[in-house]
């Protein structure tokens, strides 16, 4: 092994950590990755002896935007990631080999580095139906993911496809597109977004390799490091929201002043992502900064939360643009009308209804009053 390439261990030690720290880091990594204590030595060995951890990147039902996003990383730049940080042994998008040779790279890695390789998954799995909706090398996506996940040291689900099913999972989900965490029996780090931000993707990987195992995850398996805040919480247009200053329609006076996009459908208030902080493409912009509301691309089922230019989803089966409010108003009006009609009928029938009460009541007149006093 050439001296120029530091191993994971050397890299960590060069940052001032001791061998004990290194072991602690490995066991933390193992614990978070769900590897039994018995598996620990292998992960220690992997990071200690292998200059670059082996990585397999699988593609299933997806559009490759996650790969495209990945190569837009600005810090670190992607060339450094794939040539210095990792050994990207299998990635259909970039690898030189094809067909049998590609297959061989994949098999070599899962055999030679069992328990040591990192599995990155782009795309959802069309579960069931004999796997015919996604086949690679004559095998179904489901067969491949099960095999690849079995001995993976860590599994990362890239993008909304792998972590929540994304567009193909939208109603009526014709291919039964299913996110990875529902298919495999292992902890999965979900990195949702359509696609996720490039620097978030490389951030998650570097966190895994450099900062002590898996980043802390929230209840949906997302790294808190990037998904702890709603887009809205750190949106630079937030003061306009609080001031109640809204864009009423695209390119109106308010849009030209950069007011809040809430009323043209912005999903920032219900979307957990790093966009408003990390921003896109090296910090150049993010959807809201360029005038379009957030469409919630990192949230579960966001495709069925449309229409995107409206606050509340329309209800299927209620005609066009029936939101909760139109239905609510209709029912409210109906209730008021019912109440009014009821009151009218009650009035017409008042004699009958209150006859008994009238009969029972005493009549008081001035005379009586006078008489009594």
């Amino acid at each position, binding site marked *: 092994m050439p001296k120029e390439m530091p191993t994971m261990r050397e890299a960590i030690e060069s940052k001032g950590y001791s061998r004990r720290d290194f072991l602690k880091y490995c066991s933390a990594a193992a614990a978070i990755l769900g590897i039994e204590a018995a598996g620990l030595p292998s992960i220690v060995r992997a990071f200690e002896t292998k*200059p*670059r951890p082996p990585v397999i990147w699988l*593609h299933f039902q*997806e*559009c*490759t*935007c*996650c790969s*495209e*996003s990945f*190569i*837009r990383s600005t810090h670190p730049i*992607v*060339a450094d990631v794939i040539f210095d940080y990792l*050994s990207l042994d299998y990635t*259909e998008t970039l690898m*030189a*080999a*094809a067909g049998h*040779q*590609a297959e061989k790279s994949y098999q070599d890695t899962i055999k030679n580095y069992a328990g040591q390789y990192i599995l990155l998954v782009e795309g959802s799995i069309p579960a069931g139906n*004999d*796997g*015919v*909706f*996604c*086949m*690679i090398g*004559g095998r179904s996506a489901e*067969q491949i993911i099960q095999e690849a996940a079995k001995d993976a040291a860590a599994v990362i689900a890239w993008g909304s496809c792998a972590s929540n099913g*994304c567009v*193909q999972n*939208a109603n*009526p*989900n*014709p*291919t039964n*597109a299913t996110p990875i965490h529902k298919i495999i029996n292992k902890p999965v780090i979900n990195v949702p977004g*359509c*696609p996720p931000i490039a620097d978030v993707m490389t951030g998650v990987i570097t966190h895994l390799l450099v900062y002590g195992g898996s980043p802390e995850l929230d209840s949906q398996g997302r790294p808190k490091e990037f998904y702890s805040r709603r887009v809205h919480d750190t949106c630079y*247009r937030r003061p306009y929201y609080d001031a109640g200053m809204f864009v009423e*329609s*695209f*390119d*109106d006076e308010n849009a030209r*002043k*950069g007011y809040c996009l809430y009323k043209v459908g912005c999903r920032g208030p219900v979307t957990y992502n790093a*966009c408003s902080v990390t921003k896109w*493409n*090296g910090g150049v912009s993010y*959807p809201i*900064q*360029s*005038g*379009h509301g957030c*469409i919630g691309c990192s949230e579960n089922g966001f*495709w069925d939360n*449309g*229409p*995107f230019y409206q606050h509340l989803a329309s209800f299927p089966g209620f005609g066009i643009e029936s939101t909760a409010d139109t239905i609510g108003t209709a029912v409210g009006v109906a209730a008021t009308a019912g109440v009014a009609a009821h009151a009218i009928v009650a009035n017409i029938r008042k004699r009958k209804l209150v006859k008994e009460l009238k009969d029972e009541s005493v009549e008081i007149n001035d005379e009586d009053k006078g008489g009594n006093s």
Partner: protein
Amino acid sequence: MATKRIVVDPVTRIEGHLRVEAVVENGIITDAFSSGTMVRGLEIILKGRDPRDAWAFTQRACGVCTTVHALASVRTVEDAVGISVPKNAELIRNIMEAALYVQDHVVHFYHLHALDWVDVVSALSADPKETSRIAQSISHWPKSSVGYFKDVATRLKTFVESGQLGIFANGYWGHKAMKLPPEINLLAVAHYLEALEWQKEIVKIHAIFGGKNPHPNYLVGGVPCSINLNEVNAINSERLNHVSKLITDAMQFVNQVYIPDLMAIAPYYKDWGAIGGGMENFLCYGDFPTHGYNQTDSFKFPRGIILGQNLNEVVEVDARDPQQIKEYIKHSWYKYGAGDEAGLHPWEGETEFNFTGPKPPFDQLDVQNKYSWIKTPRWKDKAMEVGPLSRMLVAYAAGVTEVQDIVNDTLARLNVPVGALFSTLGRTAARGLETKLIVGWLKGFFDDLVTNVKAGDTTTFTKEKWEPSSWPQSCEGVGMTEAPRGALAHFIKINSGKIENYQLVVPTTWNASPRDPSGQKSAYETALIGTPIADKDMPLEILRTIHSFDPCLACSVH
């Protein structure tokens, strides 16, 4: 006679899941089958949704050509309900599309296609001095010093010696068909890295106007960003300066790196000017309108068809004519109400799954029957090739002088006949040439935008027909574009403000489709026939021809 079926699956360095089965006799491909093996059913999912949202759904057809479906989609809705977008919106859309072209083509050349021609291992034995000399002789690109190429060589050496070859593992190094000298291989490897770094810059144009890349935002009726030169919070002079700078850098990269590299590599592979052709007909919808989507004669790329490789005539195409464009499913895993032989115009298109192939795991497809998730589009029942080559041919035949000049000049420099255009080499060269043209147009669109804004027009959106209540009860539209990979059209039928039917007919659908009911092959299958195979265990030549189309399978099936 030695017959063998070669299977390449996965075909890598493409977008998506493509399987190629080729029959090889005596070292030559005699028959070939192309299959798309992944489906998502976007056309089914779109039914019943708000047409104004369709751009976002269809954009997710592909993250590589990440703007064109959004563009086709907003155009199809605008066409259906009768919206014409403001001048600035047209220009910004053109700028975004042109930026995509430049990025996509460069990434294709260096990261998806180059490793078919460039031997990375051979680069190890290059003399950096000689590489530097060659580099300086073909271009003014500043990063051409001996030291620079030495550093690249060292980095490559360290990488290879680590024993972990990563993306280069099991590549076709040392293959007989690899012809470049080590010095040019090193040049290409250096620019592989340069291009990887540069491509993330040009897409910042998408981030500026569309908020992000991949998958920037679009809007029916215009573009979502507002222009306001008196506001920090809109497209202002700083934002425009940023775009301007990115365009300047892009022009430099294309003219000083991409095109010189292409011209340096091509002479070593002139034999590929006679391989990978075979298609007779070429379709181009035309694109880059300069006076509105309906003013076809204002398009930078003219619309039309070349029949029988005849460059003396451009035939008209009308996507609305129910007799012209039809999709077949005889060999695709779908069923039509009217049966397997029927062809449907996309407005009447149907998408219903009907898988009849072998259950995975399998070794071979049943190519006599249905064998792909891609439908088979035809123009007047003829197979069409689409893509950069078609665009260049149609523009050439239509008399676009800048296209004629650049094509003639290139043919002369390579010293090959016009016929060499109809080939793997021709396709790859056409992509480079159009990139050179488009990066110039990109600058032009930007200058026009600045002029328009300066003249006081800052409108980017028209509100008039935004509300579905202002639309006709039912209507239909076509949104045509030229995507980097070729002619793309979206077809919509709207009823009561909702999508009744939505069909995508995508470039790779044209090129990669299985044969039609009459047995005619589409472009991939046609182009592979006659390709020599030096080593049947190393399908390098198949990759060369297939990659020359820049396959996008997620697009093709959707």
